[in-house]
């Protein structure tokens, strides 16, 4: 039973939270421009590390807000909690972010491309 420090409500039992999987998967700006393979990387492929993992949680039974945490999947240590839309601040978190293969993926390049190239959705800045 994890103790998760909700940025809005403070430390609470994990039973109050809903797990949201890997963080920093930005929706492509123009999905139609992606190949099936590149889109599948965005849609299906997820990290499953033994060790540090950047992931999303929502305080489903509390304030209902989403946020990010950096958690060690082997020890369940929560290294860092940070708001949705921001990147990790800790050194370990920055390293985990940078080391993710997704940083080099076609889907993420598409997502972070400047606006005005035909995409419908505005960039939400969730990266």
């Amino acid at each position, binding site marked *: 039973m994890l103790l998760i420090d909700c940025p809005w409500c403070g430390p609470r039992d994990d039973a109050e939270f809903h797990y949201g999987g890997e963080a920093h998967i*930005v929706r492509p700006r123009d999905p139609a421009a992606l190949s099936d393979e590149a889109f599948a990387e965005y849609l*299906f492929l997820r990290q499953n590390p033994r060790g540090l993992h950047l992931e999303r949680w929502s305080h489903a039974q509390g304030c209902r807000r989403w946020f990010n945490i950096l958690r060690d999947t082997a020890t369940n240590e929560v290294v860092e909690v940070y708001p949705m839309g921001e990147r990790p601040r800790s050194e370990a978190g920055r390293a985990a972010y940078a080391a993710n293969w997704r940083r080099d993926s076609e889907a993420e390049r598409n997502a972070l491309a400047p606006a005005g190239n035909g995409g*419908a959705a*505005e960039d939400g800045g969730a990266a």
Partner: protein
Amino acid sequence: MNAQPYRLESGGRIDRRAPLRFRFDGRALEGYRGDTLASALIANGVHTVGRSFKYHRPRGILGLGAEEPNALVQLGVGNATEPNARATAVELHDGLVAASQNRWPSLAFDVGAVNTLLHRLVPAGFYYKTFMWPQSWWLKYEYLIRRAAGLGKAPPGPDPDRYDKMHAHCDVLVAGGGPAGLAAALAAGAAGARVVLADEQAEFGGSLLGDPGREIDGAPAAEWVRRTVAALEAAPEVTLLPRATVTGYYDHNYLTVLERRDGASAGAGAPRRRLWKVRARRVVLAAGAHERPLVFADNDRPGILLSSAARGYAVRYGATPGRRVAVFANNDDAYRTALALAERGVAVPAIVDLRPNPAGELVEAARAAGLAVHPGHGVVATAGRRRISRIEIAPLTSDGGALAGTPRAVACDALAVSGGWTPAVHLFSQSGGKPRWDEARDAFVPGASAQAEVSAGACNGAATLAECLEQGFAAGAEAARATGHSAASPSAPPHAVEPAQGPARPLRAVPGKKRPDRGDWHFVDFQNDVTAADVHLAAREGYRSVEHLKRYTTAGMGTDQGKTSNVNALAILGEVLGAEIPAVGHTTFRPPYTPATVGAYAGRDIGPLFDPVRATAMDPWHRRAGARFEHVGQWMRAWYYPRDGETMRQAVDREVRAAREGVGVLDASTLGKIDIQGADAAEFLNRVYTNNWLRLAPGRARYGLMLKEDGMVMDDGVTVRLSENRFHMTTTTGGAAGVLDWLEEWLQTEWPDLDVYATSVTEHWAVAAICGPRSRDLLAELCPDIDLSRDAFPFMSMREGTVAGVPARVFRISFTGELSFEVNVPRRHGLALWEALMAAGEKYGICPYGTEAMHVLRAEKGFIVVGQETDGTVTPHDLGMDWIVSKTKPDFVGKRALSRRDMLRDDRKQLVGLLTEDPEEVLPEGAQIVEAVRPRPPMAMIGHVTSSYNSPNCGRSIAMALVKGGRARMGEAVSVPLARKTIRARVVEPRFFDLEGSRIDG
């Protein structure tokens, strides 16, 4: 006959003025307040308390507490009965009823004992080797195995007892109230920390209660315990939990504590158990240690018990395990037992010591007391049918591997055994820490901490009382400091002096008259009847990992989880493999530490409190009308309204007809409703629905389909634009919460720039759906201020007005294909609205209809139900609903996935209608569909029936199904093979009634 013949004349922490009557296997017996069931049985001379699991050998009480493998009893009777209770951990109370287990017809004569004679045929891995073929017999095997090998019996009906859950936060949780735990609580509590001290026994003190002659701070140990407990009770921030076992150690210092409040401590109506969920900033583990038996020939006879148990029964309970108690040990501590028994007038005919040259203060004291010490000897055989009557002892060779002389007999009626101590590292291991082997202590001790905890005392390998007190005190003081408490506390730990002890001699299997791997019963695990020979066999057969050994031989399984057997089992495995113990390793400890009552985990969340039940505002009316209900998620929905003598089919047929011929009314309040507001509300809907929402005019409604990003249908519903920046979204009844979460997720994580707010208003509105050709006439009577005419109030629009005197939103939408109005009023007016409709509708023959009729009506029109026609693998195209998927929007959630290659396959399962050859035949929902029937499975399945009803309006049965390449199969015949027959059907369009849609305007 003397009651309690084995009760000593004086001594013990029992109240001899408070006799308690109890029954064991029907026999009326007596004990005293302060007894456990085990100590009371011992006082009555009852040693044989059960039959062993596999060989059905008579077994006696082995231990004193949590470690007990043998003395498992069935407690109580009827539905309050509890199986597999350890007699050593059951507090005696007046009227207690207990029965032995795993014997038939009686404990004295047990048919299953024939397994003892057949044991050559029942080796390790027997089940795996024998019960394999033929496959069709597996169920029979399982039945027989369970009958033969069962321990206790589950109660026949629901548990009548009450259980509670407690939640606590503390600075320091101390697990265990022996010397180390008390010292820790004392140090932490004095510093001002919020402390919870939990101990599994009724009295704090642990080993100090059963150990004579110990002194702490110059006082008898029992007096120190009394003073310490009094000091802790007086400390405002200290919570004492006796009778409370720390059963689980989970992540982030979250621990569960199971508190027993039954028996002596229970009041009427009080919870029997309480499950504490404790979040501790620091944890001090002071769980103590379990004594290890020795592995020798025929070491399982009743009357053979652990040395600490023999001492504990005599000292703490004033009950001697025998009149002539021999002692067999490899260490000095067992001499305490010999001395304690001798001091209490019990004969100790022999101390058999595996060590060739035992020397130490305790050994000398025993010699000085005139006790016969046999150094370098082992017990090589035992005798006695239901209780030990004799041991044979013999000198051993210097390596301990063989007999070095002729055995000679020593008469005894009990044998106290000690093979050293095993620290209880269970909780430490559960916390994520890895135990490490300590060669000097011949034990696994805690390694590095994985959480904010520290082990102290015997569970940390401490061998002396002084060490226990010092470690506990230091751990408690440090935990207080770490949690910010620095109030003055005693500066020095409690002080104890005790005799120095010589080293122990590890000897894994004492030779018998036969080789230990070739005969004799050298039991390693008593509860699972695993012998040293079984461990040898498993090793020979290649089960060399300790985890494999456990599963193959079952050593370390069962209700005791090998508390007395694990180290002996893996040490013997190590000897066979020629490996060091650290290389053999240890199996993983998992919660709970001791068996826990399931009822405590359920607590009060049972019966009606298991899950909240949601009822609509009209619910009282449905109940008065005699409706049958069905669960839809947490909702109770009226299913159908049978009239006198009607079957379900008759009632539903009547309701379905009424909704198309006159006027019907459905309680639609349960549909999910989400209020969506904000400047970007329309843009947001445009992204989460497949169709276009930007140009929907205020006051108009639109059906929407929501996809997951993988293109699969997730939910559907009608959404109304209330004004430029405000929408009223409806969802499926079961999907409401999930849809709101879904919307929030997109708004917060992907599109935080959108100005949109989503709020659940499901509970805010009560909804009556009026349906049928007379629905306009009916509504007109109650709604004076809305022009209900076809042109003024077109299909898929919304008007606000007054219905039955209540402000209402009226939606002209339809889930039946009939003229239909859905009247939304604030929930508090729901029942009044319904009653007004029923009263005004009487002259139109208004008919309330339930969810079953609703399903038939929508199926007649071919409308899908998400979760019935869809299962998370179905796209709009699969449903034939391309019409709702925008071709012009550049993007929406799920759009890109719809053009993935896999989505374009022709042989995807597609929604079709099915008409059975026999119009009376109603296909079972979920039935598999095949092209060609073979005599027996397997046959290629091409789909399944999703919805199937009798349709009175069509005059026959109708069904919908998902079938591979279904749209290309129109007119083809398919078969639905069932257990006793095969139903043939024809593939048709999934629409059955009013194909031209002419009824929608009435």
